[in-house]
């Protein structure tokens, strides 16, 4: 039997990048991945790609900051499958800039998607997980949320917030057998980081003991473990996947 056979997993922001990699890997291990993202074409293409491998995925279009949208989609998913086993809060954005020049709108946008979106999806899914007395929630934070980063005050605050949210929800839901953990990726090669100048990438790589960027698969592999029964005694933790960048 596959490790996540028959599990129903929702992954937000999964049309591309790390989220897609997580969805692909969960499906490979037997789960049905429910891909949630903003753009219909991108979602359809992502679902198709998993389908082509003979694994299960379906897609929904939603903005994680819209609680009505999220609630009604989760309801539909629950109706269709009778349960929701796994939620991966991965949708995230950056709007970088020095604090002295940061627009309030850029602060708000990042806080809304990264932190409030995670709160909304957690609240809406726990309705079902509480009832079934089981569930796994994984929140994608960032090492920047632990160490801070010049030029990313909004992003760092949102990711630090996710870590605190993870601990609080782990405590609130432990009695219902719902485990909540955070994953803090370091420097991962995706479209988000492809935007960066080569010089910045080189500088970063020099600071990483394993002296290379990570891949989306490195994150997905940890998700498989944390979502499985093998991690049944782990909750409230933030696990770094960063090549040793910070210790």
């Amino acid at each position, binding site marked *: 039997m596959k490790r996540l056979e028959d599990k129903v997993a929702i992954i937000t922001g999964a049309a591309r990048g790390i989220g897609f990699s997580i969805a692909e890997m969960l499906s490979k291990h037997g789960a049905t991945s429910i891909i949630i993202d903003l753009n219909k074409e991108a979602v359809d293409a992502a679902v198709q790609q998993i389908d082509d491998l003979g694994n299960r995925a379906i897609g929904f279009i939603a903005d994680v900051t819209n609680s009505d949208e999220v609630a009604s989609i989760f309801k539909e998913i629950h109706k269709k499958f009778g349960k929701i086993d796994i939620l991966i809060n991965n949708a995230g954005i950056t709007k970088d800039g020095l604090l002295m020049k940061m627009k309030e709108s850029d602060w708000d946008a990042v806080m809304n998607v990264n932190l409030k979106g995670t709160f909304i999806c957690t609240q809406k899914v726990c*309705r079902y997980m*509480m*009832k079934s007395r089981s569930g796994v929630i994984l929140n994608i934070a960032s090492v920047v949320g632990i160490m801070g980063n010049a030029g990313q005050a909004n992003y760092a605050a949102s990711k630090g917030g996710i870590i605190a949210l993870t601990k609080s929800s782990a405590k*609130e*839901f432990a*009695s*219902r057998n719902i485990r909540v953990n955070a994953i803090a990726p370091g420097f991962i090669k995706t479209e988000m980081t492809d935007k960066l100048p080569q010089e910045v990438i080189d500088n970063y790589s020099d600071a990483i003991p394993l002296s290379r960027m990570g891949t989306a698969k490195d994150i997905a592999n940890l998700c498989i473990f944390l979502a499985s029964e093998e991690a049944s005694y782990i909750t409230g933790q933030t696990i770094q996947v960063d090549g040793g960048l910070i210790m």
Partner: protein
Amino acid sequence: MDIKTKVTNLIVEELGVEIGEVTLEASFIEDLGADSLDTVELIMKFEEEFDIDIADDDAEGLTTVGKAIEYLEKQLS
């Protein structure tokens, strides 16, 4: 089945208490051993069973069996 019976059954099922304990005066938390998450779940059960939305402000006041029954009877009449 009337509202009172339905509510009583839901409470017995949700909180795992004896039917005799579910008196009108019984407080969910103090007498029926509910924790705060149980009370959230109970409200969700009422919403489902009776197909209504219970506002958070209203839910806060529903601390005893009697108050819940009274509230639901009013909402559903």
